[in-house]
């Protein structure tokens, strides 16, 4: 199953030109500067923007081709718009009910109650939208989109208006959602953190064109994309839970290049997880150092040195077959005399478990 998208739209100065097969599973993050066409793409997929000569299929259903155009209400999508778009004439409760009532198939699993609880909007049921704060509105809109039990979720910066604590609660929920219900999610976000955390695939848009599409892990460490050069470059890779040390609450994670200690909730041994390592968290030493609070130290080979002339260089290190990006100042690089092919030690201060 995959989502086949082919759109070509000219709109005054802006042209959206996309021809792509998006994975029909997991979360696909859409990432790109303001005005690059993210919202337009989601609208076209939802059938709200009618682009002639386009093609769109989701799984084995054709939603749009030369002969047909499936009306928006027949496309089973849940759409959270960029601006909170509640029905002003309906209370919070009835806004959510609106989607619930029109769901193509009912379920009584109480999933929606769970969503309401998680989004912390249970106490708002009787209020009208104009009596809610910005973040509250956005949360209700999320609940409403989920209530319709869509086959495809389109989220346009759904968490932008929320504080980090709430985000931290909702993100895992959205994660679990797409895993449990197995519905593909297209997720527009400006936050690399969110993307790293949530997304399986990444779609990079610029001026209406796809500049890259692929696994988040690959794109984040790809030195050919601007992502790796930014100050918050990062590497994402897969690992397996090998051990859990209950005393210190540390999980040992095996990956092709060695193992990591990470702070995480206990997980069954053998569980596959994704690790995120920020380039700025990786320092390089020539010797294996002792007596340090840094737990993760392992030998790596310098694969490539990028932006050699910048004050901050990016080093692409290989821990076995796993690439790791590291930021070093040119001064340090020179002091340590780093060269391609050198074997050095990577010190990783923090590693984040993504899934």
């Amino acid at each position, binding site marked *: 199953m995959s989502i086949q998208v082919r759109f070509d739209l000219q709109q005054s100065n802006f042209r959206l030109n996309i021809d792509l097969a998006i994975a029909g599973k997991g979360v696909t993050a859409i990432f790109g500067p303001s005005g690059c066409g993210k919202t337009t793409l989601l609208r076209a997929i*939802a*059938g*709200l923007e009618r682009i002639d000569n386009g093609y769109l299929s989701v799984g084995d259903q054709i939603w749009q081709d030369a002969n047909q155009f499936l*009306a*928006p*209400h027949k*496309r*089973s*999508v*849940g*759409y959270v*718009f960029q*601006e909170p*778009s509640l*029905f*002003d*004439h*309906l209370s919070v409760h009835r806004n959510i009910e*609106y*989607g619930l009532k*029109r*769901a*193509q198939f009912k379920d009584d699993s109480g999933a929606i109650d769970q969503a309401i609880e998680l989004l912390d909007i249970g106490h708002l049921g009787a209020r*009208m939208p*104009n009596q809610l704060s910005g973040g509250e509105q956005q949360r209700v809109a999320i609940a*409403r*989109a989920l209530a*319709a039990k869509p086959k495809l979720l*389109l989220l346009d910066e759904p968490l932008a208006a929320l504080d980090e604590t709430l985000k931290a609660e909702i993100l895992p929920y959205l994660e679990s959602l797409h895993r449990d219900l197995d519905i593909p999610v297209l997720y527009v976000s400006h936050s690399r953190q969110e993307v790293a955390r949530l997304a399986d695939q990444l779609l990079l848009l610029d001026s209406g064109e796809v500049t890259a599409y692929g696994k988040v892990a690959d794109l984040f460490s790809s030195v050919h994309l601007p992502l790796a050069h930014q100050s918050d470059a990062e590497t994402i890779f897969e690992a397996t839970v090998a051990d859990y040390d209950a005393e210190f609450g540390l999980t040992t994670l095996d990956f092709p290049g060695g193992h990591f200690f990470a702070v995480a909730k206990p997980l069954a041994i053998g569980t596959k997880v994704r690790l995120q390592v920020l380039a700025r968290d990786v320092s390089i030493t020539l010797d294996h150092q002792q007596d340090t609070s840094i737990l993760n130290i392992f030998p790596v080979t310098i694969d490539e040195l990028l932006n050699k002339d910048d004050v901050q260089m990016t080093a692409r290190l290989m821990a076995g077959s796993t690439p790791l990006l590291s930021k070093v100042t040119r001064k340090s690089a020179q002091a340590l005399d780093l060269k391609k092919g050198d074997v050095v030690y990577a010190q990783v201060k923090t590693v984040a478990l993504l899934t």
Partner: protein
Amino acid sequence: MIFSEQDLTALFVTLKLAGLSTIILLLIGTPIAWWLSRSRWRFKFFIEALVALPLVLPPTVLGFYLLLALGPNGPIGGLMDSLGWQPLAFTFTGLVIGSVFYSMPFVVQPLQNAFSNISNRSLEVAATLGASPLDRFFSVAVPMAKPGFITASVLGFAHTLGEFGVVLMIGGNIPGSTQVVSIAIYDHVEALQYSQAHWLSAGLLMLSFVMLLIVYGVNRRFSGAQK
């Protein structure tokens, strides 16, 4: 008893006429207004102008032309005749048709404005939640256009109450069938029976005022609960 039996009959006919006309006006006017508010047809303004046109003719004159059209020699009357139907002139049904025709702009225009103010966004949201166009119309457009519906109904109803020229012309002022209150008052005035005219006018005003109070009052309380 201040009101004669004939006056009361006229009042009853009037309320029946106004009520029925308002319902029909809303039924016909709503789709027209919706189309006018959403269509992007280049020549839409042509239809808009056409809808407002019945307004500019004096009602009696409009009634005169309706009479010509509905009469046995007129196009509508002739057609009905050849189909073996009863002629419409001088019947209650004829009155309803005339009133609907004449009050149409008062219903279409407020509705069109109200519909125009509904953001596409709300309708798009409804569509993504699985609401069909008809469902969207009833679950989003209609409730959001509520003030427009109230204005349309009030203007349509009140205008039919006060309607006069058209009804006079095609109704023929036949007590019990086509004599409405407005004509009865007019007759009293013409016959110099001023005190009867005063009483009937006052009665009509009171009744209408109470009805208007109820409409606006209920609306206020309803909207008030929302805010």
